């Protein structure tokens, strides 16, 4: 049985009422290499900072070796951090930087003894100069900077500063090393080398690493366990293979690796329908005709001859780009509803070619849809006008003023406008996922309702947009007071 070292329980964090981390629970075991992965602003750094002690959770608890450390200041925690952009002390040389923590440390001096009052007393002492020098030199050796002790930190290259930062943290022999996007400022080649070095260090030291990054490849390469976060919430926790092969939802699939995300329906167990074509798959336990999301990795789609018996669906080649170890092909399937697919294969095809596609049954990854329709609560402002999310929308309803209503709007009935002023209310785009023939966006209104929108255009994340809904597309249902509506 693995031993728990850090436990985060129902942690929430808000800044000025704005939630950044929402009810995150996570267990980290001794010796693990855990990566918190997600786009910027997903709360991964805040989570790490709460483990380090720089931030206090608004609610929830953080446990370290079973002890509650939620309120403990950073200097009393047995964790050390490698900061983004290193944060080395400019007034100290390399040696001084690494020795900083050691000089503050106290260790037990001799055996505990009984004092005159009969209490057991443990004398503490600082490390001697010789001990510090020895430890610092060992740390410098570990990061291959043996002769750099006297150098000023500003005279070092990015990679060297990074090594000093790692040495400065590790020299204190923490039980957990926290790394906040430590390789973000390095160039690609250096980053790859450092990834391998960090993995080797982790193996050699046997301590727990908690690593924060937005680089999915880094996460897949280095981690034992990946925690995918979005919008302050954990989307999936799993091994790299699990997260890659069995993404929990469309977001994870889209964020980790390239993928084709399509909408479909589950005809029956092991049979999925995508845009009129039926395919064999291995997923069971869905409702009959339940709308689902299907994820297919580009490398799982194989190009075959149209006449081949394996050919499941025919498609027309739109582009074919050489990528070194494979060709990246985009192809448009034939049928009533045509889907665009990305394919990685090692055959070269010409634009306009008609090709056959083959996908193995277990390469269809079927997932429940996060939501089928936008539902929210509102109130009639006037006859024919409904108020929700701080905006007044004209609607076809004869309900009286002040009536509480439940509003339902289909994904493709929400209209986004480029200019915020053109919409009834404003919103921020928080995610856009291509689904083969259309984009599915999530836009967040100013009072934190997330609208799912199906649109023909790709909306840029963080853009401000306006929201409009045609009056006949707003479906209203009166809510009796005693009836509680779940949104």
């Amino acid at each position, binding site marked *: 049985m693995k031993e728990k070292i850090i436990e985060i329980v129902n942690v929430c964090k808000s800044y000025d009422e704005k939630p950044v981390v929402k009810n995150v629970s996570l267990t980290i075991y001794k010796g693990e290499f855990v990566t918190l992965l997600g786009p910027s602003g997903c709360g991964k750094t805040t989570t790490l900072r709460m483990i380090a002690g720089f931030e206090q959770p608004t609610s929830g608890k953080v446990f370290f070796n079973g002890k509650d450390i939620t309120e403990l200041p950073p*200097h009393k925690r047995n964790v*050390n*951090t490698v900061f983004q952009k290193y*944060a080395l002390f*400019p*007034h100290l040389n390399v040696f001084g930087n690494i020795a*900083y*923590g050691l000089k503050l440390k106290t260790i037990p001096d001799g055996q505990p003894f009984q004092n005159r009052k009969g209490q057991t007393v443990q004398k503490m002492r600082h490390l001697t100069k010789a001990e510090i020098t020895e430890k610092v030199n060992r740390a410098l050796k570990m990061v291959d900077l043996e002769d750099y002790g006297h150098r*000023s930190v500003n005279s070092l290259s990015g990679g060297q500063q990074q090594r000093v930062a790692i040495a400065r*943290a590790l020299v204190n022999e923490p039980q957990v090393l926290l790394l906040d996007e430590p390789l973000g400022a390095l160039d690609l080649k250096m980053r790859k080398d450092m990834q391998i070095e960090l993995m080797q260090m982790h193996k050699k030291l046997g301590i727990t690493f908690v690593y924060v990054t937005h680089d999915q490849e880094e996460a897949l390469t280095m981690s034992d366990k990946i925690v995918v976060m979005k919008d302050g919430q954990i989307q999936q926790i799993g091994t790299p293979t699990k997260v890659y092969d069995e993404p929990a939802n469309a977001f994870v699939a889209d964020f980790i690796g390239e993928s084709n995300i399509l909408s479909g329906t589950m005809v029956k167990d092991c049979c999925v329908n995508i845009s009129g074509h039926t395919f064999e798959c291995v997923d069971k336990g869905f409702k009959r005709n339940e709308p689902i999301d299907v994820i297919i990795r580009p490398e799982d789609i194989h190009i075959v001859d149209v006449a081949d018996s394996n050919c499941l669906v025919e498609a027309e080649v739109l582009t074919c780009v050489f990528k070194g170890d494979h060709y990246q092909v985009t192809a448009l399937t034939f049928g009533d509803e045509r889907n665009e697919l990305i394919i990685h294969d090692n055959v070269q095809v010409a634009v306009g070619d008609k090709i056959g596609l083959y996908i193995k049954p277990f390469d269809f990854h079927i997932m429940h849809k996060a939501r089928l329709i936008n539902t929210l609560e509102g109130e009639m402002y006037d006859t024919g006008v409904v108020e929700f999310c701080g905006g007044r929308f004209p609607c076809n309803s004869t309900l009286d003023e002040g009536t509480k209503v439940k509003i339902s709007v289909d994904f493709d009935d929400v209209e986004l406008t480029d200019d915020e002023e053109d919409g009834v209310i404003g919103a921020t785009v928080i995610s856009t996922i291509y689904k083969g023939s259309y984009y599915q966006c999530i836009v967040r209104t100013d009072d934190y309702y997330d609208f799912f929108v199906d649109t023909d255009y790709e909306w840029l994340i963080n853009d401000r947009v306006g929201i409009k809904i045609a009056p006949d597309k707003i479906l209203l249902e009166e809510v009796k007071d005693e009836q509680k509506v779940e949104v």
Partner: protein
Amino acid sequence: MNKKLKFRFSRKALAYPYMAFLILFVVVPLVMILINAFITDGNKIGFDNFVEFFSDAGGGLTVLGNSLIIGFVTTLLCLVIGYPVAYFLAKYHASNNVLVLMFILPMWVNFLIRTLSTKTIFLAMDLELGMGTVLFGMVYNYLPYMILPLHTTLVSIDKRLIEASEDLGASKGTVLVKTIFPLSLPGVVSGITMTFIPAISTFAISEILSVSKIYLFGDAINMHFSKATNSFGVGSVMSLVMLVLVIVSNLFTSLNEEEVRSVL
């Protein structure tokens, strides 16, 4: 070929009027002081003025010593009072600009008016004007010059360095001593120069707040030029000594951070 000879109006030309002003009112007077320093009794050229000053015949050297001591005490007091102020201003800077303004506000009032009002207050309180009141006036006048550079450096300290320090085991107090203070040293040095130099060369404050009982280097120079006759020479020597002091302290500030640390 012709084009080359033509005067071309470039942006550089905009600086010429000020250059002329500088030459006329800064460079020329400095040269005049330099010449004056070597002239005694209106016609003799020699080192007599230097001999007179450095042999302390007119008490000039003693005055310089006193001024240095007062300047030193003023600077020390400004640093001791100013550092905590600057630290808290920097800490709460984002949320309270009014606070910073409160400390800069006195600088907007003419220092003579400030000093005269201080004197009136002291007189109303029936306090004896002397060393204490002069020191008070000095600290009061020069405190903003200490706080401002300190505040600027403290505000610009990277918050992550403070976090890194805490992360490595430093308590709040240790962070202050081992990280914040060393990182604010450039501000301390420029605060000291901005306080020390004006403090030793001032004359009005000591004159007003001690009713001319306390006599500082600035007062001495002032007297040599305005009251006594035929002592332009010694006055010039004293001005030169002052100039050397200013240059030395400026060299001290312009040293880069590491050199400052090695000096301290």
